[in-house]
């Protein structure tokens, strides 16, 4: 990774990995990580709105705190840390109405 890396894409790739690793037992991880991946894909394509970004914020918090095991609890980490340290990259891709 260097200064040219797309951080939204990094988060999306981590979600893709976590989706594959999810056991599928609990609702937050099984559905939540898929939804996070879907939202991140939408954002990277430039098709997401501010409401989608707000939903992303709500979902990562919910998945992190309600998941049954460590996979679901740590999966949203790339999402919230890229949101925290690289918010400009997200905002640049979001459609402002």
């Amino acid at each position, binding site marked *: 990774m260097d200064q040219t890396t797309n951080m939204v894409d990094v988060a999306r790739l981590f979600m893709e990995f976590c989706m594959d690793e*999810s056991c*599928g*037992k609990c609702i*937050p991880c*099984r*559905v939540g990580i898929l939804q996070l991946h879907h939202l991140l894909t939408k954002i990277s394509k430039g098709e997401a709105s501010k409401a989608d970004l707000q939903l992303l914020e709500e979902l990562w918090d*919910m998945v992190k*705190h309600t998941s049954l095991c460590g996979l679901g609890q740590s999966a949203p980490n790339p999402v919230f840390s890229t949101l925290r340290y690289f918010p400009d990259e997200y905002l640049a891709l979001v459609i402002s109405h």
Partner: protein
Amino acid sequence: MSVKTLTINGELVSAREDETLLEAAKGGGVHTPTLCHLDGVGDVGPCRLCLLEIAGSNKLHPACLRKVAEGIEVNTHSARLQKYRRTIIEMSFAEGNHICSVCVANGNCELQDLAIEMGMDHVRIEYQLPNRTVDTSHDHFGIGHDRCVLCNRCVRVCDEIEGAHTWEMVVRWSKSHVITDLNQPWGTSQTCTSCGKYVNACPTGAIFYQGSSVGEIKNYRSKIDF
């Protein structure tokens, strides 16, 4: 058996030391929303609806599994918990193909009841529209995977009460689903005793009596409780 005293939502509640927080709350008149819990079978805790806040702990604890302890302070209905619960129900609806208007359990469905309880009037997340199957190979019953919320109550009822263990969960992630025996049509099952307990155990209209029309399923949970 000693008695433990704890605080639930600001009120003092007494409970036996082997009781779970869910049972203690019920004893204290507090209803905790659940989906995968079924009185009479063991708890697994995958639905995450019964999560509670305990003072002094920054984690959330499932009420159906956490045992009571002396002096703990429990909050069952904070704004944060209600927000999480509502999102969990939205996720449940988005994950399957739940079309209430044509469902056998319309009006008698725990998922509907939970949606009403959580004030869910719309689903904010994208519907996944999965390609799921229906198995009506059994003479008397059927299973429509579109309506399955993967609570695995049917698995536990068949295993712990009937003792046949016909049902099992297979595959990981969102492809996870229930199967009969060695992933074969229900009608060919060697272990199924056709006891019908699964119809009473299923919280939605996923498992049904064949020939049932819209809204005709009635679940008698008390027949499984002990």
